[in-house]
């Protein structure tokens, strides 16, 4: 290649300083993003290990691999680790941390030290969670439902509750940092209607983190206090109400799904615009739909409680409101497909993940509407239908978005290209493995297989075997990227400033960027995604 002239390596955020201290005391948002990347990957594989054990147990109808007590702990800790220690921080704390300042033309986040503190809080919470796992674990389900969690469970509820309480503060600090940064640190010319949709979606996510997470924190604290001091907030014999816990818990935990999915949507808007060479269709609607999702998301929580004994009137209200969230989500999906229409599409790895995201998120979202319907919900509550539904959103949606984004910005983050053919191969494996794992669960749930049991009637076995087989394929699809990303850090082809020929400020600085992101403070005189003004290069250089 003509461009392969060997130049001395530029100074960048990776080679500016070396040594463990330069990482553990860094206030550079890009280095903190990498700290997060390493830590959440660690927890992802722990959560994944629990998932594989669950699937192995369900290979046969009898409860043979583990006993019921152990199984209860497995699905509880799978959920808690994956949600609070992987999915919630995943895209915001890694890609958001890295990209928010770059995309708006800032040197760093508004509060760099607060950013580092958020990582330390995450690590403290993670260490506590690990300790809890290693010394017996919890069995309440990730939802901590009372009265089981407050009065009956004899596992480590307090420790897990405190760990997630602390992790919540890490999440609040990330949200706070993003809100202030997006308001205050935009480069000259970067007006609100020129912001990349990645930023709009992260802004909406941050609002949820800021306003929702404190409610989860205080709720878990109440569980801990009730368990230790027998307060009686949730205990009916002392004038409390066990359903109050569910109200408070889901007030956060339904919107928490949008903390996971909005950032994935953020990634897709960037990826789809780049690989169709077009401005996102209906930019303003896509931007506003993020805000709408953040607000509407707080109006629907009791759809998790339809059979729990809430009043029929409120169930009707929450059922109707739940349909409302489908509107902004559909706006996004339709606008992405409209963007692709007559676009010049390249099937790169990030784009394959984007296609996967659109399909799987749509299925997850539509089955969410089934569950929002009162009558159907009564039939499928607490069955594998629900499990399949939220895994289509959280794994098919959020994890696909995370992996797609990681591939898209990997050249920027590491300064190296990953092997494109292997990337595509892994993306296909993930897609196939995912569907084989979770599609059978829709059918199982509809036929009545309940969630959270370690054994099941023999007639459910065929579908369970399919699901378990799928999970092993999915595991391969997740290990592969980790392997070739690590490989590429040393052996990958050096990345140019803008390997995808993409629009956006992050591509106007070197790969990897210098410590303060830009050599010259950028001035913005263009709209977001102005692909019609970007000259075509002969070919997108893919490895």
């Amino acid at each position: 290649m003509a461009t392969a002239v060997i130049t001395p390596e530029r100074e960048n955020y990776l080679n500016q300083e070396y040594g463990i201290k330069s990482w553990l005391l860094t206030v550079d948002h890009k280095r903190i993003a990498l700290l997060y990347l390493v830590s959440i990957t660690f927890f992802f594989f722990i959560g994944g290990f629990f998932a594989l054990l669950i699937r192995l147990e369900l290979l046969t109808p009898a409860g043979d691999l583990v006993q019921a007590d152990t199984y209860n702990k497995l699905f509880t800790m799978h959920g808690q680790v994956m949600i609070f220690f992987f999915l919630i921080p995943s895209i915001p704390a890694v890609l958001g941390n890295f990209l928010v300042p770059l995309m708006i033309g800032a040197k760093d986040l508004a509060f760099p030290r607060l950013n580092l503190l958020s990582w330390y809080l995450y690590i403290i919470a993670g260490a506590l969670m690990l300790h809890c796992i290693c010394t017996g674990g919890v069995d309440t389900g990730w939802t901590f439902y009372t009265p089981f969690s407050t009065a009956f469970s004899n596992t480590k509820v307090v420790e897990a509750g405190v760990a997630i309480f602390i992790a919540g503060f890490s999440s609040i600090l990330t949200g706070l940092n993003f809100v202030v940064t997006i308001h205050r640190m935009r480069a000259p010319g970067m007006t609100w209607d020129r912001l990349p949709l990645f930023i709009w979606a992260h802004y909406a996510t941050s609002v949820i983190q800021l306003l929702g997470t404190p409610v989860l924190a205080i709720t878990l604290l109440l569980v801990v206090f009730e368990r230790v001091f027998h307060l009686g907030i949730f205990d009916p014999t002392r004038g409390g109400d066990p359903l109050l816990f569910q109200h408070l818990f889901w007030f956060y935990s339904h919107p928490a799904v949008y903390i996971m999915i909005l950032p994935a949507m953020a990634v897709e808007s960037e990826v789809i615009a780049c690989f169709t060479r077009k401005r996102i269709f209906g930019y303003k609607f896509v931007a506003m739909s993020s805000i709408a999702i953040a607000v509407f998301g707080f109006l629907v929580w009791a759809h998790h409680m339809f059979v729990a004994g809430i009043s029929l009137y409120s169930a009707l209200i929450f059922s109707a409101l739940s349909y409302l969230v489908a509107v902004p989500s559909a706006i996004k999906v339709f606008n992405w497909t409209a963007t692709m229409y007559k676009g010049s599409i390249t099937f790169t790895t990030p784009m394959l993940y984007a296609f996967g995201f659109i399909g799987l998120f749509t299925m997850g979202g539509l089955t969410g509407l089934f569950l929002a319907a009162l009558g159907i919900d009564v039939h499928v509550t607490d069955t594998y239908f629900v499990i399949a539904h939220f895994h289509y959103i959280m794994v098919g949606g959020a994890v696909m978005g995370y992996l797609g984004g990681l591939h898209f910005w990997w050249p920027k983050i590491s300064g190296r290209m990953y092997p494109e053919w292997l990337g595509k191969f892994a993306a296909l494996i993930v897609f196939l493995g995912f569907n084989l794992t979770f599609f059978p669960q829709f059918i199982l749930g509809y036929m009545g297989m309940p969630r959270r049991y370690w054994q099941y009637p023999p007639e459910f076995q065929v579908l369970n075997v399919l699901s378990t087989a799928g999970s092993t394929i999915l595991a391969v699809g997740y290990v592969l990227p980790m392997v070739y990303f690590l490989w590429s850090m040393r052996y990958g082809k050096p990345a140019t400033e803008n390997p995808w020929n993409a629009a956006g400020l992050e591509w106007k600085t070197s790969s990897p960027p210098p410590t303060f992101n830009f050599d010259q403070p950028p001035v913005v005189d263009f709209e977001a995604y102005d692909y019609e003004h970007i000259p075509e290069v002969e070919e997108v250089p893919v490895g």
Partner: protein
Amino acid sequence: MSEHVLSSKMYYGIWIALMILTVVTARVAFIDLGPFNTVVALVIATGKALLVVLFFMHVKYASEKLVKMVIVASIFWLLLLLLLSLADYGTRYARHG
């Protein structure tokens, strides 16, 4: 940023007021006011929250739009939590036709 420095006297004053209100809450809990038991407790609690927000969190002297926006949003979200929960509690024991 508009730094409005409050004297430490002010902080101690607010703190003492909060302590007094806590004692009042505890004392009132032993007097049966009938339907006003909850009302009085909540009024005192709201007053304490206001003191904390206005003085300890400097909101009384906030002039920035962003800060005001956060306050308005927080109160709005709190109302969402309360009102939609009451949609359940207010009608849970109602008889259906």
